[in-house]
């Protein structure tokens, strides 16, 4: 196989074009939101747009560097890259806190957040690890190893604390799902320990994404029920059900109902199988609900507040829900065609009604200025990028490339979904940036590098069969 002859050979132009478009749109939005009449030049580095321009140019430069390096390095050096990121994540914990989080490495406004780069290194290591496995090889050890690759940086990030990035790391679960990596081996250990039961696979283990949804659903129900008390009088017992006890009671009811149905409608063999599943479901569900309930009580007050506000348990437009309320007002007031460029009255930095409107809430000024039309364009662009990455992923010959591509897609998707979700009241306000739009060097660099590594891997995909 011959090596690449030019840098741009085999470059995926549609994705690259979409990236450049997003960078331009993002910069335009930052310029609009942070506009200062006295220093309108985009090259004024004392202004946020000046610095953002610097970060964009610097990120493209990093992209160029990525393209100059053979893509093989990522697979080969995945472990050292990962480990050095972990070191940075540990070091950052000893740095002075900015806004209550030990997230910044470096000085002043030119600091970096190692957590941003942890996404890349985790993606690389995960890709390297999973690509070395086959489905049949899965054991308890492989599952635990794969999980540990995620969990170690997640725990370190949670210590900062940075709930947003922590949540983003769960996007890797989608990748594991796609690659057929399951929790089956662990589950089978337990299930098969029961005398007379012998399974090669369980449905639960292989579909943990749908189950994850069930988990999230149960958790939310638990929290919602936390503020409601049902008083129940049953067989002389007075029960006050609230939170997890309510959920567990509900699960018991479902369990009992299912048991009755099974007694009547199923064969003996099916029945015993189903009963195992049901019993497990009941126990796990109850345990989860209990843990969520108790865990919620142990959360820090501001996190508790956010969760409560997100769930609509509390509403206070001028208090704790300030950000979300203001952000939604900004987005909602955009109308169909928007207020026009640089006409954002709610979310401009100058008016400061929406704090962080140039970073985590950059979607606000965008939606306010461009309205629903702009939103559709932004969504199409994002959808196109995600779709294109999945196409790229599926055309890779090397599993490493494919898994990495899925990691990139899912990370971007998570950022998109959560960031915009918190602007429209669908997600809790956890500070994560909108890739390529939000002001900030770390996220700009990490997302660019992440995408350029993908583009490089794709450009060299035909080399891999050596």
């Amino acid at each position, binding site marked *: 196989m011959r090596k690449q002859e030019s840098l741009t050979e085999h470059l995926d132009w549609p994705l690259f074009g979409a990236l450049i478009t997003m960078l331009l749109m993002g910069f335009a939005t930052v310029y609009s939101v942070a506009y200062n009449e006295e220093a309108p030049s985009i090259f004024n580095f004392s202004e946020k747009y000046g610095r953002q321009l610097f970060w964009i140019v610097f990120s493209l430069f990093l992209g160029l560097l990525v393209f100059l390096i053979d893509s093989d390095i990522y697979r080969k050096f995945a472990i050292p890259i990962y480990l050095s990121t972990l070191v940075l994540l540990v070091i950052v914990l000893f740095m002075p806190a900015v806004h209550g989080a030990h997230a910044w490495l470096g000085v002043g406004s030119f600091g970096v957040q190692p957590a941003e780069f942890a996404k890349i290194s985790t993606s690389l290591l995960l890709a390297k690890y999973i690509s070395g496995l086959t489905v049949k090889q899965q054991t308890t050890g492989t599952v635990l190893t794969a999980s540990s690759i995620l969990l170690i940086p997640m725990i370190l990030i949670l210590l900062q604390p940075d709930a947003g990035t922590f949540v983003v790391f769960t996007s890797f679960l*989608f990748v594991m799902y796609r690659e057929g990596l399951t929790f089956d081996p662990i589950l089978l250990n337990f299930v098969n320990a029961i005398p007379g039961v012998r399974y090669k696979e369980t449905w639960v283990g*292989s579909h943990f994404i749908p189950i994850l949804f069930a988990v999230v659903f149960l958790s939310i129900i638990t929290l919602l029920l936390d503020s409601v008390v049902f008083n129940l009088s049953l067989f002389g017992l007075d029960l006050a059900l609230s939170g997890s006890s309510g959920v567990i009671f509900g699960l018991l009811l479902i369990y009992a109902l299912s048991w009755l149905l099974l007694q009547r409608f199923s064969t003996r063999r099916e029945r015993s199988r189903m009963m195992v599943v049901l019993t497990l479901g009941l126990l796990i569900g109850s345990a989860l609900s209990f843990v969520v309930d108790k865990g919620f009580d142990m959360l820090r007050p501001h996190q508790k507040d956010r969760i409560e506000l997100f769930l609509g348990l509390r509403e*206070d437009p001028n208090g704790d829900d300030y950000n979300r309320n203001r952000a939604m007002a900004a*987005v909602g*007031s955009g109308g169909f065609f928007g207020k026009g460029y640089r006409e954002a009255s709610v979310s401009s930095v100058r008016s400061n009604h929406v704090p962080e409107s140039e970073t985590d809430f950059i979607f606000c000024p965008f939606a306010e200025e461009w309205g629903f039309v702009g939103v*559709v364009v932004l969504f199409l662009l*994002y959808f196109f990028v995600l779709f294109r990455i999945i196409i790229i992923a599926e055309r890779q010959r090397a599993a490493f490339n494919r898994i990495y591509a899925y990691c990139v897609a899912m990370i971007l998707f998570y950022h998109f979904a959560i960031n915009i979700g918190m602007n429209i009241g*669908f997600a809790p306000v956890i500070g994560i940036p909108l890739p390529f739009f939000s002001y900030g060097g770390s996220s700009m660099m990490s997302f660019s590098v992440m995408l350029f590594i993908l583009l490089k891997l794709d450009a060299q995909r035909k080399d891999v069969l050596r």
Partner: protein
Amino acid sequence: MNLDARRNVILSFIVLVVGIYLIRLFYMQVIDDTWTLRAQEIAEKRKEIFPPRGVIFDRNGKKIVTNQTYYNLMMVEDSMVNLDTAAFAKLIGWTKKQVRQRFKEIVEGEGTYYNKITGKRTPNYQKIRAYPFLKELTLEEMSKIAPHLDNFKGFHEEATSARNYPYKSAANILGYLSEVYREEIEEDRFYKPGNNIGRAGIERFYEKELRGVKGIKYIVTSALNNAIESYADGKYDTTARQADPLKMGMDVELQTYGEKLMNKKKGCIVAIEPSSGEILSMVSAPSYDPNLLVGKRNISANYPKLANDPNLPLFPRPLQAEYPPGSIFKLVQSLIAMQEGVITANTGFPCDKSLVGCHNHPSARNIAEAIQYSCNPYYYMAVRRIIQQGVKKNNFADAEYGLNKWYKYIRSFGLGDIFDTDVSGQRPGLIPNPAFYDKWYGHHAWAFSTIRSISIGQGEVKLTPLQMANIVAIIANKGWYYTPHFVRSIGRKGSLPQFKKKRWTMINYQHFDPVIEGMRRVVNEAGGTGKMARLNDILVCGKTGTVQNPHGEDHSVFFAFAPMKKPKIAVAVFVENAGWGGTWAAPIASLIIEKYLKGKISDPDKEKRILEAQIAYQLSN
């Protein structure tokens, strides 16, 4: 296990999220306007600019109501930084306690509202909003405070305008302004808390005409409530426009002069231009300087004093003092009797004091003499002919028939009800009709003998001075009138339509001549009761009256119009507790007439006598 299918699971998950988000955004941005309103609430402030109120001119183009710039000391709690209360109190000349009290007053004054979300009562007061801490400071007062305001963050000055009355007169006509009530704000969104609204008189009646068009400026504000820029480059802004001036029919010099004449007396003067119905002057004595009721501070200082004054300066005597009209009613009775044909101009009656008391005078041989002598028995007999016309066999039914007729005539003089006009606070007086007496005595249980005292304007009949002045105007016009009113034109629009309608009485033109002749004699012939109203080169027609007052000395009354040919002014003068009409009311009427027609007074002694008189007036302290 086919893992490739899982790609579709992931893809459909992405499609699902993007789809749901788009639907949500479409709802938020395009369909639901809650968030748009919320955004306006957050970031767009409508700044309303109130224009100065319209100015008011008198009939000769003299500015009688103007505006003066005052200053409010505004406070914004959120902008305050370590307020040195003691120093601030010292600056404005208050005590610390007063300052704190005022803070509390502002917060409490805003009231509370029910917050649906929290389910609690929440104060309307907002820390980021500006509230007037001190209102209506003069330039002088403000210039002492303003230079030091830099030391007290959160306080700023704001210019505002307040009324000014250069002639210091006509308070009872012009009315005053005071702060709007919460209910008024809710009723009419024009107003904002702290705005002024016309509370009485012209200011109230022409509130909408005087307040002008407020300007609206949309500004984008920051989270700290600082104005950032005008919204959409001022595309939606409107400019404030001062209302067009009002031009009144009043002669401010005459009004001021009238108030001067009535100094230290109680009573009133009403002067009307007969040809237009414009009120030239309406004095309610004692009067007060309208500038006393300008601004919150003045009102709270002066209003209680005025309200507690034993001379009742706030009582609008020309509109609300309902007197039995007395002798002036004889003019009206003469006209009705002639119109009904029960007497002619030359009908004579003997002065039969057995019917009703009278003073000593020769018997009246005709109407002119009856008026000249103000003969009570004459009118007893004349009015009996109106009431008891002998149409019905039953005496009671006949009286009912007659009184009904009489009532219709009287009503055509605009009596018995308030005028549909811009004079606020009128009372209707009382003109009895058959239903009225039926209620008192029962149906068919009364006849002329029961109600005879109305024939000489006593008994149940009650009129206000304004109504009586209008009777004089009708006589001067020989049978018609325009509704008495104050305002001649609003900007260039002219007066209200109801002021342009000529109203005819049911009396024919020719019947007025003997009445006017009688009035001429009252003033100008020897033995006339109103000789004190005589003027050298103006032919004044008048009629004295004495209103019986059960509570003390009778009220002195005089009615007149002048000149006899082409009358220009009709005037009614009431002086409370001044006894006989000819003594005090007649000379005052003549002075008013002379002042209006000539602009100067030919008899300074007469004027001096009036100016110096103090009648039934309680000096305060």
